[in-house]
């Protein structure tokens, strides 16, 4: 029984932190967020070289065969650094590919994902933004032995950077998970002007787009969605942690009324409350990553719990960070708004806190009765 990272995991954390401190410094984040792809491809290659893109990918597919706990460690560090690169998207896509039932697709796509040559993203949300698995927004129909997809996907994280899409679609016999190369015929990608400049969003239109069906097992797809939520929660816990540190540092140095503002209880108590939420977020995120790996029957509840707790904690920490920085925190020049926007974006992505709390209520209180 040990609810703490192992020495190896701690080492991975410091490796990731050191890497992101230089490769995703705030100056670097600000530089790449103004560029067209929204992330730096050479630092992406280095991420791959360090083995950080293939953490959850088995060794036979070019990864390091670690667990989601290790992936969560790195994602938390990425969240601290506001990494603009599609690490979250790729981690989610790799996990979904792994969880699917198509070994050939896994053998084809996992090695280039681990090596950084292919950016994979999962697109489950319909254009309406719903996170219900059944709201796919896509119709899949047979065309000879192949499948063709028609419809729309919205709010796809790093969609424009993707080489490979994993999409849910409604088939005549239920929901299926499909892979679609980004250059497939009949597929159109539109970049969206995201509120969060450090994380690109896109929508996709499918017209008779050929796709490969890789999974029809509903519980495996649900698991993929849960893992996606856990990955984002880990990233949010890191972001919240960073906001607290930034605000505390500033409160120690900013002097007003001849005292550091951090010596005023009005500021102290704001920050102490954030500390409580940050600790809660870390615990919930760690537990969910552990459950994904070692206690799968707990995953649905643990994932919804972590996503709702971490979303709320990050928004609170980012908002307090703006507040404590006062006028400076309201400027474009200061980094506080970048965390606030990341927090507000992440809150709604992959299921809002309200969505996940409703899911928790269904699991632990009672399902909603069908309307009469």
């Amino acid at each position, binding site marked *: *029984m040990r609810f703490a990272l192992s020495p190896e995991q701690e080492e991975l954390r410091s490796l990731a932190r050191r890497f992101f401190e230089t490769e995703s410094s705030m100056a670097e984040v600000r530089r790449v967020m103004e560029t067209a792809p929204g992330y730096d491809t050479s630092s992406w290659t280095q991420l791959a070289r360090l083995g950080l893109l293939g953490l959850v990918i088995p060794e036979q597919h070019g990864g390091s065969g670690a667990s989601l706990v290790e992936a969560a460690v790195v994602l938390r560090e990425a969240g601290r650094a506001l990494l603009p690169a599609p690490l979250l998207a790729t981690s989610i896509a790799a996990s979904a590919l792994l969880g699917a039932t198509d070994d050939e697709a896994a053998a084809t796509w996992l090695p280039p994902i681990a090596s950084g040559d292919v950016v994979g993203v999962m697109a489950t949300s319909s254009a309406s933004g719903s996170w219900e698995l059944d709201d796919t927004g896509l119709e899949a129909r047979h065309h000879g032995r192949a499948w063709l997809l028609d419809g729309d996907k919205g709010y796809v994280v790093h969609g424009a950077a993707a080489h490979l899409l994993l999409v849910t679609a409604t088939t005549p016999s239920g929901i299926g998970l499909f892979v679609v190369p980004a250059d497939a015929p009949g597929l159109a990608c539109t970049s969206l002007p995201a509120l969060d400049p450090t994380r690109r969003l896109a929508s996709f239109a499918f017209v008779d787009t050929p796709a490969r069906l890789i999974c029809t097992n509903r519980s495996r797809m649900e698991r993929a969605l849960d893992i996606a939520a856990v990955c984002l929660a880990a990233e949010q816990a890191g972001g919240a942690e960073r906001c607290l540190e930034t605000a*505390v540092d500033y409160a*120690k140095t900013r002097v007003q009324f001849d005292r550091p503002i*951090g010596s005023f209880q009005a500021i102290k108590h704001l920050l102490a409350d954030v500390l*409580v939420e940050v600790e809660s977020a870390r615990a*919930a995120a760690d537990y969910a990553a*552990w459950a994904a790996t070692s206690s799968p029957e707990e995953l649905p509840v643990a994932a919804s719990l972590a996503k709702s707790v971490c979303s709320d904690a990050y928004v609170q920490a980012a908002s307090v960070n703006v507040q404590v920085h006062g006028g400076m925190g309201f400027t474009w020049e200061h980094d506080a708004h970048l965390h606030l926007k990341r927090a507000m974006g992440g809150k709604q992505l992959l299921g809002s806190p309200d969505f996940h709390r409703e899911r928790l*209520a269904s699991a632990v209180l009672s399902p909603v009765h069908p309307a009469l």
Partner: protein
Amino acid sequence: MDLTLPVEAEAFRDGVRSFLREHLPSDWQGVGALDEEQRLEFGRSWREVLSKEGLLAVAWPKEYGGAGLGPLEQFIVAHEFVRAGAPLRPLPGDQHGLSLIGPTILQAGTEEQKAFFIPKILSGEHRWAQGYSEPDAGSDLASLRTRAVLEGDTWVLNGQKTWQTAGDAANWIFVLARTDPAAPKHAGLSLLLLPIAQPGVEVRPIRTLTGHAEFCEFFFTDARASADHVIGGVGNGWKTAMALLGFERGASVAATAAAARVELDRLGELLRLNGKDQDPLVRQRFAWCYARVEVLRHLALRTVTQLLEGGRPGPESSILKLYVSQYQQRVTELAMDVLGLQSTVMSGRGAVAHLGPDPLGGSLDPAAWEGVFLTARGATIYGGSSQIQRDVLAERVLGLAREPRKVSA
């Protein structure tokens, strides 16, 4: 990260479970199902059972009559007892004796003090009350004014203490008193132990906003304590008293987390009974509470991990205090809202608990929820108010500058 129990711990847990099955009555519904008289009667016999099995003081070393259990086993015992609705501290005052002053004597006491007090705590001969707060020394505890003057081999006490939980059931009290008025505020204090049944001690009940007298206040007029009964040495009272607050943290967090879950399960039952489980707003609030309670369990696991690795409870424990007390208010507010107008009438069976949530077997009636709602108002005040906890976290965990304080003796 490994949250599975080791094989030995699993076997230990199974042992605790079969102990509970074996020794609790066959129709057991939890101590919350008993009325006050039944509780006292059950508490007496349950105390005998625990004492015989060595489960009364699970954390204490075996040589002093404890079970010598490690942090994980303590965690398991606390969790299993609370989930089964079986009290860990069967009688009023046991909490103070077994969890507070007992461990303090074991850590800071002399061998003579251990030999004198420890067996009497275990047997129940000594029933303890805590004497810290004073009318003019609450959050600013170190400004306390109860004076003790040494006359020969006896300390003579004068002053007033307040907020003694179960003070009416106690026959001994540990008192933090000023023994050196010339020393700086925190330095001139000592922890004195004295019997209550003496002419210089007067006990009065304090009726709280719940309508019950959960607390007492103590008046000392030339009350006497033996010079042999100073724990931790004269002048070391502050240090000794603060260490006392940190004992059995792991077990107490486990018990708190399990108790919160028992209460939330009961609230879920209430929601299903009155159909409010279908109300989307109620579902949101219930799920928020559920997440809060689960995270509390995660934080408890983390605390146990730290203790297993030899860590001592530090200022981080203020996180838990703040977290739990605020949660208790939120969850009981939800219960009151769910009851709606029913929450305005004190109908049915009332709350059992004096502090904290009702144990297993507690009532679903409005009066019970009203009781825990009112009780929860105190949770953010006693044991260091939320405002003090935030100061502690800000200054000692986040490292922010201290509030300027007047330097005084």
